[in-house]
């Protein structure tokens, strides 16, 4: 595997605010890299620096061996970019938008016809070519944006929250499309807030308050020692009365942390705690419906724990 995206100590400041603080990572060709973090943590800023839209204050980054600051123009031919908001021309039709980007990328007429067929088929835009972009649904807008960013067969595609605010079916379809691209050897750099999407990535990075806290394959992150420190265990606790569960668990002496996870609560408990003991504790309290089992931490547990530790560190200092 060859490295196509490489960042070393990448930093960006906006006045007094440090948006990205010395972020380093390497991404291989053909990877789907999931970039996660709360809003305002610096995800978009990293993407914008990698695309040459913003200049880093410190550090450097390379795309396919090209420097993002000095070789921006060469890089632009290699990358596709889908920004967070729909940023195509709403008053133009689907076809006009595609043709415009084809012309901007300087595709020859013959290539253009073939490429247009390919991306239209890929994005499932047949039959919508005459429609004004403004009247497309959220899912179709994203498909159009993706189609436009793929016209020039980019090696690397940056997608900033490609599935934000669209329905689950459209979300699934966008991801099917991303897998097809990755299978063809395109490197994808995707930001998302959805944990199920993060689970599908070959590797994920988690950025919080401008710092990259963790990077790795989802299963490796779940095994990180700081997620389950000192022999502690993760338990999934469910009950008919889930609303009372969370405060009760947090009060329990052997529980380090607890968070709502779907219909249940995920709890991190100290070494030596077992599921039966926890269950027994609740039965004693009079809640007979409680069920408790040991589980591996979810990605969400990983990120919540990392965030909390970072926050505690910041307070401790």
């Amino acid at each position: 595997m060859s490295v196509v995206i490489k960042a070393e100590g990448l930093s960006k400041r906006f006045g007094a605010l440090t948006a990205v603080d010395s972020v380093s990572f390497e991404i291989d060709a053909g990877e789907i890299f999931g970039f996660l973090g709360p809003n305002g943590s610096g995800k978009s800023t990293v993407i914008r620096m990698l695309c040459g839209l913003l200049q880093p204050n410190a550090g450097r980054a390379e795309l396919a061996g090209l420097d993002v600051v000095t070789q921006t123009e060469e890089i632009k031919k290699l990358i596709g970019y889908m920004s967070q908001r729909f940023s195509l021309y709403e008053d133009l039709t689907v076809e006009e938008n595609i043709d415009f980007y084809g012309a901007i990328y300087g595709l020859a007429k013959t290539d253009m016809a073939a490429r247009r067929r390919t991306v239209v088929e890929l994005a499932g835009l047949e039959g919508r070519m005459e429609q004004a972009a403004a009247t497309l649904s959220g899912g179709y807008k994203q498909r159009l944006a993706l189609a436009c960013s793929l016209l020039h067969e980019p090696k690397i595609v940056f997608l900033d929250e490609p599935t934000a605010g669209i329905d689950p079916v459209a979300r699934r379809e966008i991801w099917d499309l991303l897998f097809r691209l990755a299978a063809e050897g395109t490197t994808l750099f995707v930001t998302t807030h959805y944990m199920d999407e993060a689970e599908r990535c070959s590797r994920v990075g988690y950025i919080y308050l401008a710092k990259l806290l963790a990077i790795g394959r989802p299963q490796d992150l779940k095994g990180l020692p700081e997620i389950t420190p000192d022999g502690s265990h993760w338990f999934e606790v469910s009950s008919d009365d889930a609303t009372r569960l969370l405060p009760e668990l947090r009060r329990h002496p052997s529980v380090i942390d607890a968070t709502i996870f779907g219909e249940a609560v995920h709890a991190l408990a100290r070494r030596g705690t077992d599921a039966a003991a926890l269950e027994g504790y609740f039965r004693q309290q009079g809640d007979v419906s409680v069920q408790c089992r040991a589980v591996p931490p979810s990605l969400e547990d990983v990120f919540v724990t990392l965030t909390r530790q970072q926050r505690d560190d910041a307070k401790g200092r």
Partner: protein
Amino acid sequence: MFRGLWAILRKEIIHIKRDPATRFVLAIPLIELLLFGYAIDTDVKNVPTVVFDLNRDAESRRLIQEFVNTRYFKLLGEVHSDQELQSAIISGRAKVGIKIPPDYTANLVNGRRAQVQVIIDGSESTTALQVLNSSQQLGFLKSLAIQGIAPEQLSIDVRPRLLFNPNLQSANFFVPGLIGIILQLVTVFLTAFAIVRERERGTLEQLLVTPVSKGGLILGKLLPYTVIGFGQTVLVLLLMVFLFGVPIQGSVTLLLVLSLLFLIPALGIGIVISTFAQNQGQAMQMSLMSMLPSFLLSGFVFPRESMPLLIYLISFLIPATYYLEILRGIILRGAGIAALWDEAVVLAAFGLFFMLLSALRFKKHLG
């Protein structure tokens, strides 16, 4: 250098065809032309006048008629007291009050100086001045007639001759200047908006990750609006000649060539504004701000010669000042390139300055 120019150009034309806001901007010149050409008439005629006649005989009625005959005064009616006369002027119903004292006829008959009081609302200086002149002239001519002196018998015969605008129509003064204002308005607004709209909608960010060149992007945006601005100049010129009857004394070709020259700084101002404004609201305010000096200080409305020194010096820094000289020179006085060379050179320098500034300000990345 100009990569992506054609793509941007074609897209821009589609925007113009589909955007209702652009169409509105295109209507502005026509609205302004009709406003300035017709409604704003500084030619003073038919000033509303009330009469307080205490004399009340054939002689005083003849005097009133003579005032009316000058066409500067329009008789609204009579008032019957000084207070009534005052309130007619204060309320704005009348701008002039003529008071004829009870001994007017008696004085005339007995060869004494008869007095007539003309009270003028001075708040509108142009009107007041015109009324002042015509009432004094009326008194002067009437005195001569009573003395039995024909005007031809006066020792000095001053014969003013008005060149270029013999009837002193304000349309001849305003409409040529208006061409400059319209051209600047349309080009500054449209170019500023065309770029800021892309910034506001996020499409500029998308464009900036493509290999489109700075030159291609800017030129592709400018060319359509240059054509529109130029088309509007021609339209306004045609209306000026055929609707307002203001003939072009000089060379039409020279006028069009120098108009193109003026477009360069105007477009440059538009781009510079777009590099500062983050959204269309800001672009609108900045464009209006940039228009204000052109409107007030370029000599479009107020003669530059009568401005205070500081303001007069500032007016040299406004491109429209020079273009207005060119417009009035060619249209009204039939001036040729020899007479307008200085203005043309200054406009070219302004063009260079604003284009350089916009090239420096316009960056191919965000923030």
